[in-house]
């Protein structure tokens, strides 16, 4: 793999007694799509702000595109902050072009690029509208375009999906894929796991300022055991004894009518190497009639809840 676009070494940031970011280490390879996951208040935004040198870490080093400060290479970085906002009175194309010129593009090139992006991502008809006449979601799309118009090598998007409808979420996913295909590195933070699952090659999961996971998506899946979901009227006591089954929990069936018929839903956690066929065969042989048999990988959502778990719930409602 080529030299990393971004490295963080033991980066820590405190606000008084509160440690926002605690000893984070990170290395992001070029051209990857990297997800920053974590509950609200985990330190994602603080980390991103430190990467951009808007605030300085108390200790540790950050290296961006081979430089100590992002300000030195700010023309090569694109940034969408968590709290979105644009000049209300400006026209859509003008604001994209303005931010691109601030990043070193010439006026004419910036203007040209603005119209090109607006056309490609379905906002052509709004090019001459003022920002205040747009909906919040459209404004957010404009801001994403404004952050990438100067073709940055590194794109950092803080919560880019929040507030977008499903159609526009897909447009944004496509945009991120386009950037990645173009060799641009994308870092985005989110707490919607489906996006991370679909887009990211690697994930960083932080909670309370500490890194709890850093790796590929499949590594993340491996963190919690696989599951088998069964629905049956029969007795599954014998299944518990099977080799490879770690634990069994009863779940409320999703279908209410099934419950009325006496069908119960069970969730079996199984070892990584466990053979699902063996469980199915066991049921068949012991006359346990199944109305449902699902063998699924744990979703990233489950991984997230598993890793962040109780702590996050406590902190969210602090």
């Amino acid at each position, binding site marked *: 793999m080529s030299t990393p676009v971004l490295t963080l070494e033991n980066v820590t940031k405190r606000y008084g007694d509160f440690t926002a970011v605690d000893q984070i280490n990170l290395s992001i390879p070029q051209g990857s799509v990297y997800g920053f996951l974590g509950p609200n208040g985990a330190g994602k935004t603080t980390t991103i702000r430190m990467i951009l040198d*808007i605030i300085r870490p108390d200790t540790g080093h950050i290296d961006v595109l081979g430089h100590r400060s992002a300000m030195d290479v700010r023309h090569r970085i694109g*940034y969408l*902050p968590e709290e979105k*906002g*644009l000049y209300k009175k400006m026209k859509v194309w003008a604001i994209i072009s*303005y931010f691109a010129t*601030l990043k070193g593009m010439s006026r004419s090139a910036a203007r040209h690029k603005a119209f090109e992006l607006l056309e490609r991502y379905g906002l052509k008809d709004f090019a001459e509208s003022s920002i205040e006449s747009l909906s919040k979601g459209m404004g957010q799309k404009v801001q994403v375009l404004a952050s990438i118009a100067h073709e940055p090598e590194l794109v950092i998007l803080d919560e880019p999906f929040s507030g977008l409808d499903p159609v526009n979420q897909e447009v944004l996913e496509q945009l991120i894929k386009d950037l990645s295909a173009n060799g641009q590195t994308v870092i985005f933070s989110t707490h919607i796991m489906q996006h991370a699952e679909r887009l990211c090659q690697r994930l960083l999961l932080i909670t309370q300022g500490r890194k709890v996971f850093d790796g590929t998506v499949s590594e993340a899946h491996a963190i919690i055991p696989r599951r088998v979901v069964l629905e049956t009227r029969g007795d599954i006591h014998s299944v518990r004894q099977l080799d490879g089954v770690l634990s069994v929990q009863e779940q409320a069936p999703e279908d209410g009518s099934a419950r009325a018929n006496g069908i119960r839903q069970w969730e079996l956690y199984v070892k990584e190497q466990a053979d699902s066929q063996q469980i199915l065969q066991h049921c068949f042989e012991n006359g346990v009639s199944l109305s449902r048999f699902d063998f699924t990988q744990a979703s990233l959502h489950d991984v997230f809840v598993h890793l962040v778990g109780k702590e996050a719930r406590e902190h969210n409602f602090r």
Partner: protein
Amino acid sequence: MRVTLLIAWREFMENVKTKGFWIGVLLVPIVFFLIFHISSRLATATPTRYFMLIDQSGEYGGAVATAISREHQRQVMQEFMRYLQANRVDMGGAPPPQAPANQLDQLMDDFGNDEVSALDDWLSNGGLDMALQMARPYLREDAPPFTPPRRQFIAIDPPADLDTSAPPQTIVEYMRPYLNGERRLQHDGTAVPLFALILVPANVAGDVVRPDSLERLMLSDGTPTGVQYWAANLTDTRLSSAIQGSLNNTIRQQEFAAQGIDIQAVRDIQRTRLPLSRLDPGKQLGEAEVSMADTFRQWAPMGFVYLIFISLMQSVQYLLSNTIEEKSNRIIEVLLASVTPGELMMGKLLGIGATGITTILAWITSFFVFLQLYQTVETAAIVQILDVLLSSDLIPYFVFYYLCCYALYAGIFLAIGSLCNTLKEAQSLIMPLIMILIVPVLTMSFIAQDPNGTMARVMSWIPLFTPFTMMNRAAAQPPMVDVVGTTIVLVLTTIAVLWLSGRIFRQGILRTGQPPRIVEVWRMLRRRRV
């Protein structure tokens, strides 16, 4: 630098596009025009006043009638002066004809000196006709005929059923509803309101005050003495003061006569004058006479102080609201990922400074356009005055103090803006600054009167006041030590303020939540880096 200019350009363009900017640009000339237009109309638009004279003494009624006639003649004189100025022959740059003006000056002066004989002269010499004849050689050929103003005070007869010989108390009680506007009197077939009742009691001669009767005056029991002037409107004093002056004149002439003094001699003595030439020590003998333009030049700095003040108030408004917009919209974060706080601050200062200068230029342009389109006597005088201004050394002073003042206050307001999330929060913080800014405006006319006095000199050395005060004093040749010294202090302070507000700006701009307390601001200034 390129980025700074980009930011400045955007700030400028966005401000210029706002409604507020155009309201500011257009409102000032419109208000100026209206004030000008209305005040010149109002002078002639005062309604006709009806008064009633009841003279029970049979002695002073004539004096009152004279007073009212004299007040009318004064109006005629003033109108005539205006007419003369508007219609005199254009002498092609040569000074305007002095002779009639001097004679008119004499006449006006006589009026001012309570000299009834001047009016007698004016009337016996043909009054207005004489003045017109005197002025005719100097009038343009196409000059319109002079229309004298209508009488503003018209005598009205008492109601038929009023017994004018009744005691004053009774008459006043009877007339009270008329004076209060509840009832109206008949005059030439129309009902008119009564403006004033002038009642001369029968025994009024006994109320004449002489130096030896002062003691008696002290013991007065509160009942009105002398001539009684009853009017609901107490703000229009022209009639009452004219009557008072005329009465005193009559009394004094009687006294002269009683003591055997030749009245004609007294009149002549009262019209004797020794001219006073007002001279400027800063000029060569021969040109030292203080002209109207010179007088204006002394007062002109006040206009510049106003201009600085108004423009500054407008600019800081933009600075505050734009900074707070960026903060509350969180645009600031994108900006700070693209530019340094220093570049952002300088861009804002330049862009909004350019907006302010544009406004001033627009005002000046519209002012000139106004003068071109609306030519009257008054505007002709203003054009002369402007010529003086433009050729004077006040303009460079103005440019310098305007820029320094802007940089100084803009720095402070930017720092405040960076600490606040809403305009509401900012307003409580800028209140003290507004108070400070009002001081130079309040003291402006005192400083203009005594430009090198203690107050002016002390205020000049306080940097927040320096631009205003020194501008105010600019025409009065302040001591060199003041000019150079305060300039150094001002420039150094401005640099220091910009540097300090740069530090606050850098840290305040990313802050959220309540504006910081003083202690926190102090910490921001001391901290090396975020």
